[in-house]
Every structure is written in structure tokens, then in C-alpha cells.
């Protein structure tokens, strides 16, 4: 390390309420997601603005899975969106009673409020959001601007914001819409009264974040950060220019808000600085961050932010209580190129990897000592997750990534999952028949579950033994999740009338209910 040990600030809570990563699980967010590296403009229809490789010779790190259909839990229910049927399914816990409510067309995202009183869907087909009373299932539809594909709820459950996220766009999103279309807009909806506040925030909104108290929303777009005072009677964006070069701006890709809500940190692809915005004064500043930062994550305790400077081969560690303080800089071994970091839940380890280099290796960073060890894998990394206890890493490998894979390898041209014991870094690689789509873990960190594209299986992974168990489902699962305060996992499956299976991994009992969509039609 080039700098003294990190300064810690006690009493701060991570503000990344909307963060997707499974190693940042809070008490609401039980469904798994994984770190695929930093956001990029891959998949967008326009130039990424940051240059093809950020100046380091490698393509952007890939982020290709947004899990928009991730179920949303409350203390008593889990809500599952059914886009094909224009409904939301409510599963009662622990009774497993299931009932559905009609929402708008093609519900694409579902979220629940912190007080567990409401669930909200963003309905891509009808360009609206549906506010659902969690107990009565009464619904209220609120129109938003057209052609969006993403929704983010504020941590206090008072607001949702919908926008077009180019990184999450699929073919339906990219299909030409009739008439004029803007790529600068965001719709904020106040859930208490259904008031809708459309606004223009900047071209290509990338991320929306909120302060912990929900008083501010920030939208980072290619060249601007829009700050919205959500306490105002009519919220409006304060647009701050974050790119000095508006002709060919470096693409803003990620934004973090400090725990106290004072600052927003913005990472731009191909830049060598982080943009720091004072959310009180709205002053825009910059701090050094090495060359071409490709990932920016908060540590699990929310006290620090880690930027991966892929171009200069460094980790820059910032004190989030004072982003302008000198960061600690951890050099990455010169033989390696890492573009992403995934912190273990205890913050003691960081896993370093790249989805861009095609190298079958990853690094383990001991945060206390600053040492980085290199470990080999059967294939290059596609996505990575960590069990809630931080004992096991799940490293997913894509079938098409075979640059340094021997053609005789059983993993050549196959999808794979490597389970890594993070105590001794012993690995158990598994060949998979298809691409994993979603995983989740029990809160105690003992078990993981994942499903694969088009495969009628629910895979159960024991994080202690690194063994897996395959459970055959009646049809192909669409999404899974662990029910709150249980070890029971549910799998929502393809069936025109609705199908859910519940697996008790301790007894092995699999209970399946089918046709619950009909229940709403019972008179």
C-alpha cells in the first residue's frame, strides 16, 4: 500500500439501497444478483462516448444481466411479476397461499416499500406503474413517460423513478417505437398520492440513486448528474455538468452516494478522475483515481469506496466520509489486468476479476494486508457472487469464453460454475448445460440456489461442502428467491396459468402449485 491504513467512520450505513449485488444483501433484498464488472454501454444503440477501450487496450467490462423480474419480498409476502400474464403474484409466508392481482401490461420490475405496505410494478407494455396495496391487492395505475425499461424505488418507499436504461435494454426495448422518442427523460412517481413528475435529466440516464432518507434523488447520465429534491412540492431536476468535454464526454457509468448523503461519486469510463458532487452546494469537483476506472463499489460497511483503475493496475480506496482525503492505493500485480472488484460481506476480502480480458484467473485481495493473490480458473470469469457469510465465491463462466481453455477441457464451450472456498481458495468447478440466470442464497449463508436458461432444474449448492443437488421442476423456472426468514426457496416457472414450486432444502420436500392465476377469476 502506498498510503496508511484506511480511516474508518463509525455509525454509517450503506446507502446503496438499490444496489443489486448479492454480497450487499440487506434485510429486504434476498434475491441474488452478481457482479459482472462495472456498467458499460454495451448493448446501447449509441456510442459509449468513452472510447472503445478506455485507453488500456481492453474492452469495457461487461454487465449483461439486470434481473428486472427479481421478486420483491415484504415481511409477510413475496411479490412476483408475471410479464406474460400481466399479473403480480403474491405469496404469503409461511402459509404459501398464492393470489394474483392484475396490473398493467407486461410488468417488468416489481419492488416493495420499506414499510411493506405497498408493492409497485413498472409495466413496460403499458408505460405505467401499478401501486398495489400489499394486503388488499387493490391496484392503482399511474401513467409514466413512454419507452422506459427500468424502475428504482427510494429507500423510504416514497418514490419510484422510471427511465430507459440502455445497458438493460433488450430487443423489445430497442425495437423502434412509433413517434418521437427521448433518451433524456425520467419519470418520478410519488407513491403516496400517485403524482407523476416527468423531467429531462440528460442524455442516456445510467443510474438512479437516492440518499438514505429519500430526500434527494440523483440521476447520472452520460454528461450530467441531475439532483432532484424530493421534498419539494413539485420536484424538478438540478442538472449539473459532470463532463468537461461536452462534445465527446467520457461516459458516466456509476454513481455512489456517501452514507451521510453529502456527496455523490461518479465514475466515467476512460477517465482518470472521479467526479465528486457536493449534494448540498451542488458544486462539482474531481479526485484522482488512476487510469480508466472500470468499477466503483462501496465496501459493505459503506465507509469506503473502491475504484478499480484497470488502466494503471491499481485499486483506489476512498474514505466516503471525506472523498477528498487522500485515497489508499493498492497496486495490482503487474502480470494481471483486473477491471472489477467484489467485496466479501465482511469487507475483509475483495475478489478481483475481469470480464474483458478472457483470462482464466482472479485475484483475492486481503484488505487488511493489502496482498493480492492470483488463482487460476477453468474458464474466464463471466459473473461473480459471494455467499452472505463470505465463505464461498460463486464464479460463473460463459460457454463462449474459451480463449485460454484447452479444447480437451470438459469446460470447453460449456457454461460453468466454480465454487470457491474463500478460506483456502479450494475450487469445485461444475459444468453446466446452460447459462445461469438467477441465483439466491439463504440468509444463513449455508445454501445457494440457481437456475439456468431453459433448464427445468433448481440447483442447490451447499456452501459448506461445495456439493450441489439438482431438483427437477415441472417446467422451466423463470425466477427464484428465498422466502423471508426461511430456508425455503421458491421457483416461479413457465406456465400459462402460473406455477410456483417451493423447496424445503432441509427435508427435500418440493411443493408445486399450478394454475393460481385462475384464482383471481374465482367469483
Amino acid at each position, binding site marked *: 500500500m502506498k498510503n496508511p491504513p484506511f480511516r474508518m467512520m463509525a455509525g454509517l450505513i450503506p446507502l446503496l439501497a438499490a444496489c443489486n449485488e448479492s454480497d450487499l444483501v440487506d434485510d429486504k433484498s434476498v434475491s441474488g444478483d452478481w457482479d459482472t464488472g462495472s456498467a458499460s454501454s454495451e448493448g446501447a444503440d449509441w456510442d459509449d462516448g468513452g472510447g472503445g477501450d478506455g485507453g488500456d487496450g481492453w474492452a469495457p467490462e461487461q454487465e449483461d444481466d439486470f434481473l428486472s423480474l427479481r421478486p420483491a419480498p415484504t415481511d409477510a409476502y413475496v411479490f412476483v411479476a408475471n410479464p406474460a400474464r400481466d399479473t403480480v403474484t403474491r405469496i404469503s409466508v409461511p402459509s404459501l397461499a398464492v393470489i394474483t392481482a392484475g396490473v398493467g401490461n407486461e410488468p417488468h420490475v416489481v419492488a416493495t416499500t420499506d414499510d411493506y405496505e405497498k408493492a409497485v410494478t413498472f409495466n413496460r407494455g403499458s408505460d405505467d406503474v401499478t401501486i398495489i396495496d400489499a394486503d388488499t391487492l387493490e391496484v392503482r395505475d399511474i401513467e409514466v413517460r413512454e419507452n422506459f425499461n427500468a424502475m428504482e424505488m427510494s429507500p423510504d418507499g416514497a418514490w419510484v423513478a422510471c427511465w430507459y436504461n440502455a445497458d438493460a435494454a433488450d430487443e423489445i426495448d430497442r425495437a423502434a417505437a412509433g413517434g418521437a422518442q427521448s433518451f433524456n427523460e425520467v419519470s418520478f412517481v410519488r407513491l403516496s398520492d400517485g403524482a407523476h413528475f416527468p423531467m429531462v435529466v440528460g442524455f442516456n440516464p445510467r443510474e438512479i440513486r437516492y440518499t438514505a432518507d429519500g430526500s434527494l434523488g440523483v440521476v447520472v447520465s452520460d454528461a450530467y448528474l441531475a439532483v432532484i429534491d424530493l421534498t419539494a412540492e413539485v420536484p424538478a431536476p438540478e442538472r449539473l455538468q459532470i463532463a468537461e468535454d461536452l462534445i465527446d464526454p467520457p461516459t458516466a457509468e456509476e454513481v455512489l452516494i456517501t452514507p451521510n448523503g453529502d456527496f455523490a461519486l461518479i465514475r466515467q469510463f476512460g477517465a482518470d478522475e472521479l467526479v465528486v458532487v457536493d449534494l448540498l452546494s451542488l458544486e462539482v469537483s474531481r479526485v484522482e483515481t488512476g487510469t480508466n476506472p472500470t468499477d466503483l463499489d462501496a465496501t459493505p460497511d459503506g465507509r469506503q469506496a473502491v475504484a478499480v483503475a484497470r488502466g494503471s493496475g491499481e485499486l483506489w480506496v476512498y474514505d466516503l466520509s471525506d472523498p477528498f482525503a487522500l485515497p489508499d492505493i493498492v497496486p495490482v500485480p503487474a502480470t494481471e489486468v483486473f477491471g472489477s472488484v467484489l467485496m466479501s460481506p465482511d469487507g475483509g476480502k475483495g475478489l478481483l476479476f475481469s470480464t474483458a480480458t478472457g483470462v482464466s484467473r482472479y485475484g483475492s485481495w486481503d484488505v487488511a494486508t493489502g496482498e493480492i493473490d492470483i488463482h487460476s480458473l477453468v474458464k474466464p470469469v463471466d459473473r461473480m457472487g459471494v455467499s452472505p457469510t463470505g465463505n464461498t465465491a460463486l464464479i460463473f463462466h460463459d460457454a463462449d469464453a474459451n480463449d485460454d481453455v484447452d479444447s480437451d477441457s470438459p469446460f470447453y464451450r460449456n457454461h460453468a460454475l466454480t465454487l470457491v472456498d474463500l478460506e483456502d481458495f479450494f475450487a469445485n468447478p461444475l459444468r453446466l448445460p446452460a447459462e445461469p440466470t438467477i441465483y439466491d442464497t439463504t440468509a444463513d449463508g449455508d445454501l445457494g440456489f440457481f437456475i439456468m436458461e431453459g433448464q427445468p432444474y433448481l440447483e442447490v449448492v451447499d456452501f459448506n461442502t461445495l456439493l450441489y443437488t439438482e431438483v427437477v421442476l*415441472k417446467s422451466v423456472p423463470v425466477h427464484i428467491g428465498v422466502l423471508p426468514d426461511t430456508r425455503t426457496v421458491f421457483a416461479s416457472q413457465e406456465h400459462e396459468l402460473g406455477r410456483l414450486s417451493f423447496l424445503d432444502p432441509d427435508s427435500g420436500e418440493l411443493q*408445486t402449485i*399450478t*394454475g393460481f392465476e*385462475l*384464482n383471481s*377469476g*374465482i367469483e
Partner: protein
Amino acid sequence: MRIHNTLLLLALTGCDPWNNWPPSDWGDIDAPLWDAGVVNATDGTYVRLPHARRLVRVNPDGSFQGVDLDGATPHRVLPTPDEEQVLVFARWLSCDDPDRDIETPSDCDDDDLVTNAELVRVQDGVSQDVYDVPAHMNALAWSPDGRVAVAYLDYEAGSDIEIDGVVDLTEVLFIPLGGGTPQAVSIGFSPRNILFTPDDGRAVIMSRSEVVVVSLDTFEVIVTYPLVLDADQEVNPNDAVLTPDGRYALVSVEGSSELYKLDLQSPTIDIEDLDAPPSDMIVSADDDAVVIVYDSLQRVDVLDLSSFELKEPIALDDPMNGVLLSEGQAFLYNRTSSSHDVYTLDLDTSELVEHRVENPVSEMRLSPAGRYAVGTLRPEIGSGSGLEQYQDANWGLSVVDIVEQEAISLVLESEPVGLALVEQGEATYALVLLEGRETLLQLDLSAPSQPIELKLEAPPTGIGALPDGRFSITHEAPLGLITFLDPATNETTPAAGFATLGLMAEETLPRRDDGEEN
């Protein structure tokens, strides 16, 4: 049929048909005078006389009396569950033209002629109650306690469907037989397959894409279960059973391997996935299980009702499509394929025993106590020679002793036209009637190879049981012949000539007051 009136003279005692006889000595009647599909009740055997448009009660002592239906023509007769009475679907014609000279249907202009339908409750040969029913309804379902009858249209049985004006094909009619007003309830298109909960409180009625639960106290719809999400979709319930506790209805639908599970207590729907459309299913209350067989799968499934999980499937050599339930045993057979296999399945141990019968099964039934499964076997084109070929070419009878797990197949001289099973003391008998043979074969099922032959007066056409244990045997006899058999003594009592009742009566317009429209 040609009837010489001198032959009738002996039979038509008490009648004075001669004033109505045609001018010549001969009259031609093309249709049968009586319907051999008789209905046995406690008070006698009821027989429809289609030509005379009458109903007659034939008594086991050989006497008979006409039943006064007030001029209505019986079209279908059904016994109540307790067999104490019968219900008669009847129709009568009226003429809207009040002209006093109009007395017969032919006098009335076609445009003024109206067909009226009613359901008549008959007991002791007397009409007790008359209920108006829509003319197209032709079938009845009964609550287990016999308190309520539900009239509906059975389209499959519907050669006599009468459409008069507007017809509501979604309607069923609840008839409180103990008194009260019948009430029509709209159910859904083509209601059929009506179940009743064990507490006699609710009727569960299947119709296209819907299942409706109706209170038997108020006749109001309690709950409607949709079977599809989209009104453009159609599913037709095929078979349905209730679980022994009456909480769930299990409904299979045509062409689908999905079994709908309707919670009647807390209205919700679940669907169990089977591997093929079920062809038959039966509930075993003792084993709390449903036995399911398939036309297209060589296996039998047992659905455990305590968990609603399918037990490990049991493989068969051939698909089966019929199930009978004996005590702790399911008896499996196939009534449509060329299979020679039948099976007994112990529902407790899942032990399967395969039996072979010599020809394909035509019909299968269990003896009252369930010890024997007796089936009629149909001829087949055999591939063998000699005796085997002879057996293949003839009708047969199979007897499977479910206790001893033994099966025997007998060759029959001709097609069986009637089969009844009766128990006397420790013995169980099959009563078999063969086409064209004027004998009744009585087989002790413990030694079925040595039948006793009872001489009959004419070739038989069918056999049915009376509530008192006797049997009625119908015969090929134009003027009517039923033999009543007491199986305890093998005494027979013939009843003949009942089909001549009202033979010469001209059809008139009933219930027509003078000078008034009826």
C-alpha cells in the same frame, strides 16, 4: 310389426280398442310397442310404451297398470336413488288455436302446435308431483340423500332433444323433491357431470371452461371457478371426482394431462400435472387416494390425497382405461383396446397382479361385495389356430377372483345381452343372458364352469335388479314380456301383454278445456 287383431283379442282384456281399429283387419306399427330399457323400483317395474305414449307399471306378480300422466308422453324414466319412486321426463302437445273442433294434433295448425315438457314424480304407479322443465332437458342428477334432483341436458344422450323457442344451454334446473319450487340456475355452457358434496349441501357442476358450486339449500351460486384465463380459450371437463372429505373436486379436462384441483372450502385452484390425459379415475375413501389410468400410458398412478402427491407410478404391460374399486383393491381393465390384460392393484402395498383374459373386455363389473370382477369378452380376429382361434371368434365371460387372484375365461354361445351379479349367503352368482337363447345361465362364481340353466319363455334382451333382490328379465316379445326371477328359489313369474295398453288409442290433445286455449 304386423298385428292380427284376433291375436290381440286374448291379450287385450279389459280394453275396447275396436272402435279405433282401422277399417281393414290389419294395422301396421313400425316402432316397438315397448321400451325394453325398463326401470325397476320398489313398487314395480316401469315400462315406456312409445306407440301408445303411455307409461305402465308391471308388477312382479305378473299384473300391470297404466300410470296416468294426464295425457303426457313419457320420454325418459329414471329411478330415484332410493328406488322408491321414479321421475319421468314427459311431453305433451297443446294447440294455441282455441277452436272447439280441434281435438287431435293433426287438427291443429303446425304453427299453433306447442310441445310442453314436464317432469313427473311417480310413486306406487301414481303421479305425485309435476314440475315444469325446459323441453331440452333430458338427464337428472341426484343429491345423495335424494332430496334434490338436478335436471340438465345430456347432449351425448340427446337423440330426443326438443328445442322449442329459446333454449338456454347454460341452464340447469334444481328440483326440491320434498316440496318447494324448482329453480333454474345459469351455470355455463353445456353443464354436465354434477357432483354432490358428502354433506348434501352443495352441488358441483362442470361446464365448458367453468365449474360452479351451488347451494342445495338456496340454489344460489356460491362460487364459480374459471378453468381458463382467456374467454377465447375453451376446456371441457371430462371427468370429476370429489375427495372423501368433500373439500376438493378433481377435474380432468378433455385432451389435457392437467388435473384441476378445486378447493371447495377455501376457493382456490391448483393444477396437478399428469403425464397424459386420464381416461378414468376413482376415489378410494379407505385409502385416501385416487387411482388414475390412461388410454395412452402403460401405467397406473395413485394420487395420495393426504399430500396430493403422485406415488411412484406403477408400470403396466398395456394401457388401461377403466377402474373398479373393491375393498383395498383397484381392478384395472381396458374396454376399448385389444388388450387381454386386467390387473388388481393393492392400494395399501401397491402390489400389482396381472391377469390374462382370453378375449378383449367388452364390459366389466364387480360383484356387490367386490370379491369377483366379471367381464364380458368380445370376439376378436385371432392369429392362432384350432381351439385358440375358436375362442377368439366367440364371445366370452371372464371371472377374476380378487381374493384368490385367479382368473378364468369361458366361451359363450352368443353375445351376452344381460349380466347381473347377485350374492346369496356365501355364494356369488352371475346371471347371464345370451342373444337368441331362451335360457338364463346361473354361474356360481366360485365354480363358474358349471352353470345352471333356467328355461325362459322367450329370447331375453336384458336383465335388471329390483330393490327386493329379484330380477326383471326382458324378452323379445312385441306385446311385452318380462320375467321376474327370484334368485333364491329360481322361481320365475312372467308378465305379458302390457305393451298392448292403449295400443288402439288415438292421440288427442290433452288438458284441453272446451273452447279454451290450453
